């Protein structure tokens, strides 16, 4: 039983890390209806910029701020050069454009910082902590706390500030938002910048786990089942979806994996999400679709 709890808790904590990536997706989809495939590449860019600067002797905070600045500049450029000219195009075109962005980011970040694997030490000890006979990684706890804080901050920003309200208005109806005088362009730049900041935090946490390397982009693929499970438009969904995917994936890998050959964590979350969607086609917390002819 203790072993099961340990696997479960480990999975839940890993799930929080998935939620972080999913959060970036949800932010952008909510505000602009763009399915941003480049989120994984943004994670990579932010993390390599940070690690690269630290390698050159910058202090942690300076590198963090610089990486944040890079992400904000990227957000502004994306809004100006990609999103604005593509307004009113079908969603699939925007999706393809974000795959194009993925190529640009992956190529550029590797061209600038090289494709070596860099270690990243945030100064958080990765020692196990024993709680009632269950071993929990301290690093995972810190990571979850960070993710939790980020989610609370974002959710309250959406809920209680003027800009947050404008953001929700844009998410609800672009035209209505425009007609009451909400600047669409600025809102978009803002969400992309916010998603960039989330990508930076994700990149740091995942980077100190896996090392800062190209494989970070694969993290995005882990987050996709999370967002369809939770619903594209729900921040809470990203969290709950992440926890569910993390926990079930680990439990399945441990208990089901040996029976059918192992390595199932690549596809198991997708199949799980698929089964959920058959019952709830808009994810757990996604907006209900009302279809009229």
């Amino acid at each position, binding site marked *: 039983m203790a072993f099961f709890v340990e696997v479960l808790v480990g999975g839940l904590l890993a799930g929080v890390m998935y939620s972080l990536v999913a959060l970036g997706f949800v932010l952008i989809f909510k505000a602009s209806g763009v399915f941003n495939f480049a989120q994984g590449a943004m994670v990579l860019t932010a993390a390599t910029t940070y690690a690269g600067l630290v390698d050159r002797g910058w202090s942690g905070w300076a590198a963090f701020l610089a990486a944040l600045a890079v992400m904000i500049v990227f957000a502004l450029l994306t809004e100006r050069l990609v999103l604005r000219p593509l307004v009113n195009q079908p969603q699939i075109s925007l999706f393809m454009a974000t795959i194009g962005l993925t190529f640009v980011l*992956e190529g550029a970040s590797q061209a600038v910082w090289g494709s070596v694997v860099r270690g990243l030490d945030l100064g958080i000890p990765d020692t196990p902590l024993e709680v009632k006979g269950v071993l929990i990684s301290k690093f995972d706890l810190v990571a979850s706390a960070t993710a939790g804080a980020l989610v609370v901050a974002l959710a309250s920003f959406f809920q209680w500030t003027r800009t947050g309200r404008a953001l929700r208005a844009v998410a609800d109806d672009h035209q209505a938002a425009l007609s009451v005088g909400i600047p669409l362009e600025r809102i978009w730049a803002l969400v992309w910048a916010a998603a960039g900041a989330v990508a930076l935090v994700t990149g740091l946490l995942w980077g100190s786990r896996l090392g800062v390397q190209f494989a970070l982009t694969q993290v995005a693929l882990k987050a996709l089942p999370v967002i369809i499970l939770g619903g594209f438009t729900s921040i809470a969904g990203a969290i709950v979806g992440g926890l569910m995917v993390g926990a079930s994936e680990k439990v399945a890998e441990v208990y089901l994996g040996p029976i059918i050959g192992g*390595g199932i964590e690549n596809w198991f979350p997708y199949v799980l999400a698929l089964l959920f*969607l*058959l019952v709830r086609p*808009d994810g757990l917390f996604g907006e209900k679709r009302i279809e009229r002819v």
Partner: protein
Amino acid sequence: MIYREAGQFRTTYAADQRIFPIVQDRVGMVLLLAAAFVAVPLFASEYALTALLVPMLVLALAALGLNILTGYAGQFSLGTAAFMSVGAFAAYNLQLRLPWIPLLVIFVLAGLIAAGVGMVFGLPSLRIKGFYLAVATLAAQFFVDWLFTKVGWFSNYSSSGVITAQPMAIAGISLETPVRRYLLVLSIVSLLALVAKNLSRTRTGRSWMAVRDMDVAAEVIGIPILRTKLLAFGLSSFYCGVAGALWAFAYLGTVEPQAFDLQRSFQILFMVIIGGLGTVMGAFLGAAFITLFPLFLNWAFHAVVRGEVRPGLLSQLELVCFGALIIVFLIVEPHGFARLWQIGKEKLRLWPFPH
């Protein structure tokens, strides 16, 4: 002056329903086919045949398949490569275990098996729409990849996971020369392209388009959604399956899951979007562009950059250029090459007059 339909009257229903109603189009098509079937094998170099034309045609076939699903029936799919992979492994296993079946029948059977798998993964499309469906089709991608890597039976317990494809032969004639491979691929692709073009003009094709434009409305006017969507998934996967078998047998010469990863799915999606959604012509133009452009970029970079550079830097810069170009293209011509072609034809009709 040359391209004008004045004086060409359609006096029968048959004439009205031709694929190419204008005589200039027919002549052009015959010339194109003649060039592809006769001139290219005679004059093209071995490199052009094996490294450019064969992969381009095979990917065009896969793009045609995805176009049926995404362009005509409006269902997003990111699992194209998975269905290609199913086709390749099915063809390999059929050839291995039932060696008496003729090659062409094997390709058809491989396509049918891929179609079956495609329909299974298409089932969720009845409940899920848009990006939810796109992500759900990724399940096919990862599951198929895992299945062929982990379950030894499919790869005949080969230790490396890379299998050499069996040599191809039809009626005792070996197809292992570049020219014959090219002709085999070209014949299959032209035939299936003709089928796709005709399908899009039938009742089936029209009901796909109705479902694409709005499936609730389509249901209201009496189109069976279940059958229409599953047929689209099945046919699309059939095309992809045949393309996958050809990719393994006629191009790579090996059967391996890595040849059909997510990048391949994206590559084919790019072809469809850049070529033009919902057009047969677009699949070919897109495939030509996406296969040839990276080669051109590579050549251009090596011509421009002289001297020593960090290894890998060039390929990273190429990646940046490729990504940027995709974005620019989407902004400049969101309807793809097929629309450019259309505009060109309109212009040609009026030429040399401006209006």
